[in-house]
């Protein structure tokens, strides 16, 4: 009887032998890190969701949630820094397009990564009281791309330029403008307020003969934002 009991327990220990390997966490993280690279390089179609999810799941289950969380932030930050450089070198009119393109890529990758790390989001992140993967991904984009010194001021100038162009009757890419505005909304209040305030003052200073209509529309945008924030 005693033997029987012993065997039972040993079978269980065997079942979770995965943690016995001291390099287990590193090996598993490497698989996931490689996958994140592939996702950002849009080379993910050969990846198996089940395999990635299982690896991330097992890491968290065996108390390596911290390693997984910091690893994902570091890897994502690296990619965003790269993206930010690519946006910086974009010439003239293609700057905003490049920014928008990279933003869309980041969103798609972030959604996939969030789903692969779903178990971590549900357990480790909750108990460690850290930001969830999706808001974290957005805030990394804000810090590494939008607020990058070479991008921020240029972004404001470009937006301002677009407004100026429209005022003089030139045709502008409204779809692009809408997407970039949507990006600010996704990034949240802080970013919107920052951008709006800068834009507003710059507009006031630059165009003393600001048409009543554009001024009004800016004010309305501001009020709507504030209302949205209070909801």
């Amino acid at each position, binding site marked *: *009887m*005693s033997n*029987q*009991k*012993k065997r*039972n*327990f*040993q079978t*269980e*220990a065997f079942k*979770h032998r995965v943690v016995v390997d001291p390099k287990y966490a590193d090996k598993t993280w490497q698989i996931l890190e490689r996958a994140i690279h592939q996702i950002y390089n849009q080379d*993910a*179609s*050969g*990846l*198996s*969701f*089940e*395999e990635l*999810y*299982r690896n991330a*799941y097992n890491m968290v*289950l065996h*108390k390596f949630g911290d390693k997984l969380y910091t690893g994902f932030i570091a890897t994502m930050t690296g990619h965003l820094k790269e993206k930010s450089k690519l946006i910086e070198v974009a010439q003239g009119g293609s700057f905003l397009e490049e920014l928008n393109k990279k933003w869309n890529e980041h969103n798609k990758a972030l*959604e*996939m990564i969030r*789903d692969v790390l*779903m*178990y971590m989001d*549900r*357990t480790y992140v909750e108990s460690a009281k850290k930001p969830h993967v999706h808001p974290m991904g957005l805030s990394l984009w804000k810090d590494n791309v939008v607020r990058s010194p070479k991008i921020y001021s240029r972004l404001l100038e470009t937006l301002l330029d677009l407004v100026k162009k429209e005022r003089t009757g030139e045709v502008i890419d409204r779809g692009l403008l809408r997407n970039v505005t949507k990006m600010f909304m996704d990034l949240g209040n802080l970013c919107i307020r920052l951008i709006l305030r800068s834009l507003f003052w710059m507009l006031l200073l630059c165009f003393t003969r600001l048409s009543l209509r554009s001024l009004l529309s800016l004010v309305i945008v501001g009020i709507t934002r504030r209302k949205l924030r209070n909801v």
Partner: protein
Amino acid sequence: MGDTKVETISRLAQWRIENFGPCSFKKSDPFKVGIWNWHLSIERNRYLSVRLFPELSRVSKEQPPYARFVLRVSNVGPNRRLYISPVYEKILRTTDDCVWHVDSTFHGRFTIDVEFLDLKICSLNGGEASPVWPTDTTMQSISTQTTLKCLSRMLEENILSDVTIHTSGGTLSAHKAILSASSNVFKSMFHHDLKEKESSTIHIDDMSRESCMALLSYLYGNITQEDFWKHRLALLGAANKYDITDLKAACEESLMEDINSGNVLERLQEAWLYQLEKLKKGCLMYLFDFGKIYDVREEISSFFRQADRELMLEMFQEVLSVWKPV
């Protein structure tokens, strides 16, 4: 006199009276509507009095009817007159519970109708009356049973299955829609443009074919108690991995029911791994409050050698809380 018979269809009962004749009272044969046998009676005095009452029986005594109904009297012939009662809504026990006086006399053939609008069994102890005709909930339960039968056939006969699951011991067929509706993990798996979506196959290497079949049976609603019992550890793992909360709770509940000194350490380990607070508490109580730790003295040393530090800490705190130095 063949005119005491009442014909019924659906919720309508109709009594055709050929001729009142010389008598001043007539009572119909019993007729069945709902669970009761009913009678109609007519009496001629200053008015025509129509009564409706259930047959005196055990049913009408123990489960008296609460009825909402309308009575109609009309004569047949060229100058048809129709009298309609107000809508009654009352408990009917005796012959005097419902008497409707029609201020008219009828000669020759005439017809009395009862149309039941609603029939309920009155609760004698003050509770809510229960309907005798199918209601939304009975309909729902019929629908649920049908759906379960269909789901079960989908799994057993592979009807239009669209995904193959490779387990460590063979393949199984299932449906992306069912998996996705049951678990957000599967939903994401088939949402993104990754291997599973493109190839419609999943490789679940950490489950045996039998355990995975038990998981599918659970999701398709036809798991047997025996299979659940046999595979509950594997099901617990899968429920935790795929975020199927009801199944996880059912496994924890089941594992709580048969803790013994042969499995308590294994259960504690599972509870720790899957964060099952109730099971963990149960195991710790079994070991310390009930003193069964002395039964597993041999195993506990090997357990301590590999147990997680935090778990050890919790065990130690449990020891302290029950330890009462004399």
